[in-house]
């Protein structure tokens, strides 16, 4: 009697010549738990500063509504930061590429986004390693489907080497499990983890997230981190950072979409506040809040069909983002025991006046890799 062949082994052949838009997805968590978390977060205490009720990072993209809103925001020509970011990424990546081009790396993309950046990385890495795997990880299955289209259809990356994983990587246990699964999947071969598009800044505790991710980095692995940067730290600049997001209508639609999609709250964009502040003297924090500035309390229906009361002045934090100073990045990487192999920074050039904002792309190695930091001194004394 022959052993039954597991379906997963037959799947590749079964999908090979099928032109129907199948996509494969490895789901790591029970989605009911996620819904419970979201409901719990929206039941937070009263706060006028956005520190009570909130939609935490991954939930901003969770579900088809927010995913479509995100896709619209990225295609909005008035969203200059996104446009400048995509362009600067290409320039920065070209400079970093030599460090990872020849190692035979696999790519694990944390927070898949539009997939444009992954497409660039994949087409370069695959030239040296035809057998490489592309593993996009995101909490939103819709984002995974949309984000993988670009590399698979655009750059013709073989579908049989793509494994999208639906997982909330802000949870330490999930990241540990992901690390173990990846280890079994690729063995000792190195992995390039990417956390691009200033995703790190969206988390309540960026240090905690970075330290969680660092735990799965083996000495041969690398982490590509892209963050928004600032050269000035004062209230005026913080207000300017908040304004930068305020300017785009599509972005406002996106940040409110999670609330629209998961609650019955009627959202007037006038009630969405963009608040900038200096955080710990080394970063700018932008909180995007919905605030009940009406004259009466409001009731909001939650996904579990219960209601929550929103008193006058109460807020729901919709989105968190930051702009990092060099000092903060240094502090973050040092505390997470990460060594910058290369760091490239550039300022936005779309304004007439000098702009303190820009983007920084860092290639980080775990301390155990023994990779020495590439410093000014190394540049001076290089042959």
């Amino acid at each position, binding site marked *: 009697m022959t052993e039954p062949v597991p379906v997963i082994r037959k799947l590749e052949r079964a999908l090979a010549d099928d032109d129907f838009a199948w996509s494969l997805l490895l789901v790591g968590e029970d989605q009911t738990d996620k819904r419970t978390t979201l409901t719990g977060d929206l039941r937070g205490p009263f706060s006028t500063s956005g520190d009570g009720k909130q939609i935490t990072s991954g939930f901003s993209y969770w579900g088809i509504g927010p995913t479509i809103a995100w896709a619209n925001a990225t295609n909005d020509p008035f969203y200059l930061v996104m446009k400048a970011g995509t362009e600067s990424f290409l320039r920065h990546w070209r400079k970093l590429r030599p460090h990872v081009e020849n190692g035979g790396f696999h790519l694990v993309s944390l927070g898949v986004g539009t997939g444009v950046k992954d497409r660039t990385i994949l087409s370069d890495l695959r030239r040296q390693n035809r057998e490489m795997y592309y593993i996009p990880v995101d909490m939103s299955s819709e984002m995974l489907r949309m984000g993988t289209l670009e590399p698979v259809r655009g750059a013709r990356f073989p579908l049989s080497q793509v494994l999208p994983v639906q997982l909330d990587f802000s949870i330490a246990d999930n990241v540990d499990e992901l690390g173990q699964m990846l280890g079994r999947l690729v063995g000792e071969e190195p992995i390039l983890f990417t956390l691009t598009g200033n995703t790190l800044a969206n988390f309540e505790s960026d240090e905690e997230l970075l330290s969680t991710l660092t735990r799965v980095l083996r000495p041969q692995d690398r982490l590509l981190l892209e963050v928004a940067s600032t050269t000035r730290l004062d209230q005026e600049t913080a207000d300017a950072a908040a304004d930068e997001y305020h300017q785009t209508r599509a972005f406002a639609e996106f940040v409110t979409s999670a609330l629209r999609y998961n609650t019955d709250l009627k959202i007037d964009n006038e009630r969405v506040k963009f608040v900038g502040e200096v955080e710990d003297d080394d970063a700018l924090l932008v909180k995007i809040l919905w605030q009940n500035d009406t004259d009466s309390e409001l009731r909001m229906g939650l996904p579990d069909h219960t209601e929550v009361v929103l008193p006058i002045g109460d807020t729901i934090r919709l989105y968190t983002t930051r702009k990092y100073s060099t000092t903060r990045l240094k502090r973050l990487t040092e505390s997470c025991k990460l060594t910058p192999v290369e760091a490239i920074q550039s300022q936005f050039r779309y304004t007439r006046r000098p702009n303190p904002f820009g983007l920084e792309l860092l290639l980080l190695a775990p301390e155990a890799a023994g990779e020495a930091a590439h410093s000014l*001194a*190394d540049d*001076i*004394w290089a*042959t």
Partner: protein
Amino acid sequence: MTRSTWSAYRRTVVSVVTYGLLTLAFILGVVWFFWPDNSRWEPAVNSLTLVAGLSGIFVERLTAEAERRTEVLRAVVDELQENTRLLNDERFSPAAPTTRQVYPRLVVSAVDLALVSGALGLHRDAELVGLLHRWRDTVHLFNRRLDLTEISTFSNSISPAELAGFHRALHRENSYFAATRAMLQNLLRAIPQA
């Protein structure tokens, strides 16, 4: 036969010819003194002396050139040995404390002089001249790196870790410091012994 040995050989040949002609003229002069009847002795002695006088000019020029070249090469070797001593200075030592300091600079005045003096032969020393040009560039770039290191390390905001980074970068196996030292040793080996 190399260009260098050919040059020495040429000088020897011209010297032998000159002194040979003079010796022959002297012997003919002595013979002429004892047997003055033969009237052909006079033009023979005069012609030989005249030719020896002409070739003597070349002997003098070749000897002066050789002496100048020897002097220049000796000065270059002295300078390279001084540079070796400077690179072995305790401030460049891997064991030196990682404190900010002013480093000694390498010197190239003798090399500069050697290149502009014309004492080194166009063909004979072509390879050495090429090496000296490259050494001169290396020293300028090395000294420039020392300037940049001092500017960076003497700034107020430098941390001890960054200071240690400069120390580490200087002593890295593939650093410009190591490349300069290797080039200096190659050059010392390539210079002909004066």
